[in-house]
């Protein structure tokens, strides 16, 4: 088991958005979150990543097994593509930068300042970070935004390689990646019925 959620409720700004989520993610498997905009996919991923506390229930994950990739890629425009990636590699314990750049075909852009990259190239650089992080569970929030068809293929290949090596992934995406290891979780039925007004101070914290 890489990650599991038990009766998990998540909140945004003190208001419950999803409740009663139960799932278990095994090594080599992927979970694709579906749901309309604003249904709480990002909030769920941030809660799983430990950036915010669950409203109720619990998340069980091994220590230091998660890596999160949100809407922003965390790229410094003044640094080159390679310097950006090397920084994250150093922080997360030394993944292979060159291999990660090769996986997303970024070799030709290594010495270019990240500020001069296109949106899709920046996103590829952001996704390459997941490879250098060498974590078991990838938490991906809309990973294919601004990627073209070819780059989406590169991403699918990277996810497959990660799952093949015993990793796991949870991603919120609207694109069909055709991953045979993936299950789909529609968050729609878990929409919270009542707002959690009993702990409404949370809105101010």
């Amino acid at each position, binding site marked *: 088991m890489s990650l599991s959620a038990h009766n998990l409720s998540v909140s945004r700004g003190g208001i419950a958005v999803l409740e009663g989520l139960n799932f278990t993610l095994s090594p080599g498997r992927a979970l694709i979150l579906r749901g309309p905009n604003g249904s709480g996919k990002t909030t769920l991923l941030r809660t799983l990543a430990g950036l915010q506390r669950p409203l109720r229930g619990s998340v069980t994950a091994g220590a230091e097994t998660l890596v999160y990739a949100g*809407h922003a890629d965390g790229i*410094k425009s003044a640094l080159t593509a390679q310097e950006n990636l090397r920084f994250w590699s150093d922080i997360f314990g030394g993944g292979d930068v060159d291999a990660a750049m090769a996986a997303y075909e970024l070799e030709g852009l290594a010495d270019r300042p990240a500020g001069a990259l296109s949106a899709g190239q920046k996103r590829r650089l952001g996704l390459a970070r997941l490879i250098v992080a060498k974590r078991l569970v990838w938490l991906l929030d809309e990973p294919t935004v601004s990627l073209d068809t070819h780059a989406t293929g590169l991403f699918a290949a990277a996810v497959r390689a990660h799952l093949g090596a015993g990793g796991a992934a949870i991603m919120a995406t609207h694109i069909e990646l055709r991953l045979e290891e993936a299950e789909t979780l529609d968050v729609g039925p878990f929409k919270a019925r009542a707002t959690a007004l009993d702990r409404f101070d949370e809105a101010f914290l």
Partner: protein
Amino acid sequence: MKAILIRDLRLAMRAGGGFGLGLAFFLIVVVLVPFAVGPRADLHSVIASGILWLGALLACLLSLDRIFALDHEDGSLDLLATAPLPLEALVSLKALAHWLTTGLPLVLAAPFLAVLLNLPVAGYAPLLISLALGTPALSVIGTFGAALTVGVKRGGLLMSLLVLPLYVPTLIFGAEAARRGAEGLEYAPPLAMLAGITCGTIALLPFASAAVVRVNLR
């Protein structure tokens, strides 16, 4: 841990980084004061240590909102919060990087700028020592203020208001040590108090800063 320090220093040195901003402000303040006060060398030597301390403090304040705001905007802060590095270490390293790019250059520039304000010869050593001891506290307290306003749009004003009262003890004891030194008096007691403030803030404030960053990221 070294990686984050190196990255912050590199970002400060590159185009668009904050390096030199504080130093330029310090230079402007010190150069303009004699014009505003008038050509009275005797008066300059009396106010020199106070002006230099105040200039250094305001120069420090100027670059504080860059400490976390840029990392928050581009998403790095979320990623760093989920990295193996504890947040307490992250905020300490951020404060250290801020001191190396802002505080240390101010300390090194102060003796040269003191000439412009006609600081008495006896005042140079106490000024340098008090700034070297006091500016780390300014960076650590400022990091706390920046942490409090992470995620607040245009939080610079709010942060200045929050941080300025916290800067008062450092300013009082730092400027007092420099002033007493310039007048040829014993300056060890205010210097000891200043060192105490710096040690206390370095020991305690990173925990507070990390806690508020955690709350602000929710």
